[in-house]
């Protein structure tokens, strides 16, 4: 013990031998602190941790420099699961006595194992979360959290107590008692634990006023297996006719089982099978409808293609001769050959007329048209002259039908043959075909304007128009 005034070692006297300060009262305070420390140590020894905490805190109130008391207080806190409180005490202790302090070992023990420190912190967080759940009335979640907390830190007294309180609230008295017993194993004189335990024991104790008293302890054997309390009843006698009744019960059970199978399970299975079959039939029907419609569509397409094919075949037949070559081309080539070999314009003209009557020249190939028009250009004027002469002779002999036939050919083969046009118009006029006559005269006026022929045509046309109006 050192003097508070000069720091010298104190003797048995009531004053400091170095500075003379009165230390009698100071010595009493230090003695009180030591006495509380001894009391705390004694209580911690018999696991009265609550009592130990109170005594050690008292000790430190008298003398904050009582390092042993502070270290022990930290140790007791640690034992009750209050790790942060323990760490705080040890850190203060180490600060007060940096050398030769066992608190140093305790701190190192915690700090050297980071995962353990992290697990401790997680435990605390979960406990706080459980407390939040309790306040939010989420008691089931709180219980789950507290069970996790206690699996990580089984000595956490407050968690045990809170879990017990939750069990008590849900009237799970056995479980509450089990938690409280665990508390008692850690801290035997915790007032809160004792108060809860008293309540639990009161609920579990036989109710004297109850009409149906609880089973006596002798009637059952209770033992604990892991976390479950197993209650095995004693003195339960089997009835003598138990064997027969068991057989009867089994038989009845079998009958009921078969009946259930027959009335419930079998119809359900049949119904399921029918449903499956119906579904399959429906699917097949749908597929059949789809395929039928597809077939009909294809048949329609086939009929259309067949019709088109027939038309084309018929058309082709018109072009193809007996030897299988295209008749029109053959005719054109024959006409060209005839003209080149014999210069026979009559035969060439007959061939060209045959071609023009069997095919629309404007729809043939370019080469075909070119050859056809070349031949026509070569023989056209001569033919036109021939037809004109024949037609004109017929006109003179008043055979207007023959005249019209030959003169029409004459203008076809040479459109510039204005005499043929005029004779044609006259032949129509003489045969009382005013419409064709006017058409012929119009053609002359269009093709050969400002000519004598055109003026004659105009004159005849005017006469015809006048006669037509007069007749109407």
């Amino acid at each position, binding site marked *: 013990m050192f003097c508070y005034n000069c720091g010298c070692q104190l003797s048995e006297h009531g004053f400091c031998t170095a500075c003379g300060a009165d230390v009698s009262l100071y010595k009493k305070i230090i003695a009180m*602190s030591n006495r509380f420390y001894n009391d705390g140590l004694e209580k911690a020894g018999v696991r009265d941790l609550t009592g130990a905490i109170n005594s050690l805190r008292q000790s430190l109130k008298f003398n904050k420099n009582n390092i042993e008391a502070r270290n022990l207080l930290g140790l007791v806190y640690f034992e009750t699961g209050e790790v*942060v409180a323990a760490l705080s005490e040890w850190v203060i202790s180490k600060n007060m006595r940096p050398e030769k302090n066992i608190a140093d070992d305790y701190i190192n023990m915690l700090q050297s194992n980071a995962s353990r420190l992290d697990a401790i912190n997680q435990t605390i967080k979960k406990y706080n979360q459980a407390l939040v759940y309790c306040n939010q009335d989420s008691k089931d979640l709180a219980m789950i959290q507290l069970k996790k907390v206690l699996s990580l830190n089984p000595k956490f007294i407050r968690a045990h107590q809170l879990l017990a309180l939750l069990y008590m609230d849900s009237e799970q008295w056995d479980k509450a008692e089990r938690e409280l017993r665990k508390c008692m194993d850690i801290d035997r004189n915790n007032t809160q634990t004792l108060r809860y335990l008293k*309540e639990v024991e009161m609920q579990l104790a036989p109710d004297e006023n109850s009409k149906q008293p609880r089973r006596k302890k002798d009637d059952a054997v209770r033992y604990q297996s892991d976390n479950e309390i197993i209650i095995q009843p004693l003195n339960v006698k089997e009835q003598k006719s138990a064997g027969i009744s068991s057989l009867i019960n089994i038989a009845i059970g079998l009958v009921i089982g078969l009946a259930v199978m027959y009335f419930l399970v079998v119809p359900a299975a049949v119904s399921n099978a029918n449903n499956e079959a119906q579904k399959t039939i429906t699917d097949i029907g749908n597929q059949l409808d789809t395929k039928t419609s597809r077939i009909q569509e294809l048949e329609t397409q086939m009929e259309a293609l067949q019709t088109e094919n027939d038309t084309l075949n018929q058309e082709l037949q018109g072009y193809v001769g007996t030897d299988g070559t295209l008749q029109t081309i053959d005719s054109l080539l024959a006409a060209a050959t005839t003209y080149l070999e014999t210069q026979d314009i009559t035969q060439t003209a007959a061939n060209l007329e045959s071609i023009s009557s069997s095919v629309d020249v404007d729809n043939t190939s370019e080469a075909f048209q070119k050859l056809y028009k070349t031949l026509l250009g070569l023989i056209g004027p001569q033919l036109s002259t021939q037809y004109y002469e024949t037609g004109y002779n017929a006109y003179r002999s008043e055979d207007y039908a023959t005249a019209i036939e030959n003169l029409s050919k004459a203008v076809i083969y040479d459109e510039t043959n204005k005499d043929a046009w005029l004779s044609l118009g006259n032949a129509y006029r003489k045969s009382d075909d005013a419409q064709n006559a006017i058409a012929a005269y119009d053609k002359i006026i269009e093709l050969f304007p400002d000519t004598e022929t055109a003026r004659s045509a105009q004159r005849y046309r005017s006469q015809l128009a006048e006669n037509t109006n007069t007749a109407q």
Partner: protein
Amino acid sequence: MINFEEELKKFHPSLEVEDAEEAIYNQDLTDAADLLVKMIKETEEKEKK
């Protein structure tokens, strides 16, 4: 009969490791010996005056 709500009020959140430093700094470490020394010193000062 224990009242759950009342009992729940007695439970407080536990200090987390991150809060330890603050708890240490805020701890009142004044003891009876400090008070005695203070009283003695005050008495001596009064006597000197």
